[in-house]
C-alpha cells in the first residue's frame, strides 16, 4: 500500500481505520498510524482533508503514550513486588522463576 498512489479519501479512511482499530487493545496500531501518516499529516503541503488526518495522527500518538506509560508502570511494579505478593503473584504468573521467592 503505497500512500503516494492512493486517493486522498482512501488515505483518510485508512488512517481512520487504524485509529479506531487501536481501541481494541492494539496500541501498536496507533504507533504505526503515527509513524506512517506523520509525513502526510505534517510535512506535506496543505490539502483539504489534511486536518482530519492530522487529528487522527495526534490522537493515535496520545493513545500510544498512555499505553506505554501503563505498560512501564505494570512491569516495574511486578518486577519489584512479585516476591512480596506471594500466592497472588504465583496465581497470575505463567512462568515462576526457580530457586527464589
Amino acid at each position, binding site marked *: 500500500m503505497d500512500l503516494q498512489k492512493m486517493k486522498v479519501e482512501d488515505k483518510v479512511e485508512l488512517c481512520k481505520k487504524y485509529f479506531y482499530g487501536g481501541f481494541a487493545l492494539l496500541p501498536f496500531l496507533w504507533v504505526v498510524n503515527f509513524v506512517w501518516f506523520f509525513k502526510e499529516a505534517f510535512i506535506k503541503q496543505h490539502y483539504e482533508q489534511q486536518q482530519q488526518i492530522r487529528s487522527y495522527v495526534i490522537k493515535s500518538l496520545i493513545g500510544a503514550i498512555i499505553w506505554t506509560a501503563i505498560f512501564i508502570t505494570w512491569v516495574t511494579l511486578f518486577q519489584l513486588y512479585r516476591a512480596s505478593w*506471594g*500466592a497472588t503473584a*504465583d496465581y497470575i504468573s*505463567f512462568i*515462576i522463576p*526457580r*530457586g*527464589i*521467592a
Partner: protein
Amino acid sequence: MADWRKCMLLLPLVVLINTASGTRVQKLIYFDVTGTSACFRRFNGTHQIGCTSDLTGNVGVVHYIENKSDLDWVLEAGPHQPYALLMEPEHFNRTNVIAIKQSGKVNGIMVINKENSTLPSSFHFSPDQSCPNNVNGLYDKNSQYADCSNVTWNTAGNGLMFMDFGMPIFSVQNETEIDYIIHKCFAAFNKPINGTPREHPLCAAQLKDFMTGAKDSHTCLSRTKRIININPETYCDPLGDQNVYGLLKPVSNNESLPQKSIIMATARLDSFGLFEAQYAELESPVVSFITLLAAAEAIGRVKQDIVEDKNAKDIMFTFFQGESLDYIGSGRMVYDIETGVFPQNKDKYGIHVMNFSHIAHFVEVGQVGLAEGGAYYLHSDPVSQRDGQLAKEVTKLKINFQEAVASMNITNLTIEGTAVPQPLPPASFQSFLKKANISGVVLADHEREFKNRFYNSRLDTLKGQGMDWPSDRPENFNTTIQLSRDIQILATALARSLYIMATNSTQNISRINAALDEV
C-alpha cells in the same frame, strides 16, 4: 569452477582432522570431584533452610583452611574473591560460618570429611539447635520450662542445620580427591607466599547444587501442584515415611478393649544431618531402637504369659519416624488417635480402634549409648504429675524398673529417676502429653544435658563417639564390642521392667534375657 572444487577437497580434510584428534576441552580444564555429599534446601511452614547455588554453579577460587589464621587471611586480606573454601572439620563451626556469610567474599564451602580422620576429643558438632524441637514440643507455652530455661539439652548444638546459607556447602569424602585439591590445586596455584597473594592463573572450584524450591513449604508445594504448566515441575517433596508398631495381643474391632490396657514402648528411628545421605545416627537413635528391639525379642519368647493372662496389659512396641524434625511421626499418630482412625476406622474389620484412655503407660527409650558406669535415668514430666494419681503411677513405673534391675544381680547398672523435677528431654512422649495425661518415663543415659556431642550430625558414628571395632577383628556382624554388651544388659532390664508392668508380678522374670547374638 576451480575454486568450487578446491573447497570440496578442503572440507573432508578438515572434518577428518577434527574427528581424529578431538579431546573434550572440559577434560583438559576440569577435575571431577565425585566423592561428595551436598547440603540441600529444606522448608517448614515459614522459612527455608539449607544451601543452594546459582543455576550453573558457583565458581570460587580455592583456599584451604587449615588454621584459623588462613580463614582470617581470606576474609580480611584475600583479593581474589569470590572464594570457595576447603575447610578442615574443626573449623566448620557456627562462628566461622557466620563470619564467612557476612563477609560476602565466599561463595562456596567444601568440608573435609574423611572416614579415618581423628578429631580432637574436645571437638563437638551438632547442627541441631541447643533446644531441639523446642517450638513444637510440650513446653512451648509453659512459662517455667519453655526454651530450655531449666536445662539446655543439646549443649553442643550450633543450629547450623536451621540457617539459610545461600551458598553451596559440600562434604568431601574421598582422600585422593582431597589430596588433589590441597596439593595440586591450592598449593600449586593459590597458596599465598609469605602472606602475599598469588597472581592469576588461579585454581578454582565450581560447586553446583541449584535448588528449585523457595520460600517455605506452602509456596513450593502449591507451585508444584499448579496445573497451568505444560511441563509440570516438582519444586519440592514432602518429608514423610511410616511408623512401625506391633501389639502382643491385638483385640479385634468386634470385641471390647478395656481402659488403660496398653503399655506403649517406643523408640525413635530417624535422625538428620546437614549433608545428604550422611546421617550417621549411632547414639541417637540406632542404639535406642536396637535396645527396644532386643527387649521386644526377649519378651517375645515369654509372650504366652501376657497373651494368656486376661488381666495382663498389652505391650505396643512402636517405632516413630521423623521425630527429629518437630515430631512428624508421633504427631501423626496422635492426630490419628484423636480423630479415631488409629489403627483404622472403627467401621472396618481389624484391630480395635484406640484412643488415649486405652493407654496405660508410656515408656520411651531415649539416647542410651553413652552411659557412664551403667547409670541410666528415667525422665518424667513434672507438669502432668501435678495430678497426684498420675504421679503415683509414675513412681510405680520407676519402682518396676528398679525391681527389674534388682533381679539381675549385677553391680554396675542403675536406673533411677532424675534427682530434681525437670522437664522431659526432646521425646515422642511430648506429642502424646500435649493431648492427654498419660503416665510415662523416658529412659536415657544423661541426667541433665545430652552426653552426645554429635547429636543429629554426620559425626555420630562409632569412631566419632570413641568406640571402635577392635583392630584385630574385622568389622562384621559376629563381633561383640562393649557397646553390644551394654545394650544387652539394658535391654534385659527394659524387657523385665515391661513384663512387670504388664503382668504386675515379678515371678520368674530371671528367664527374660536379651540375646547378645541378636544385638
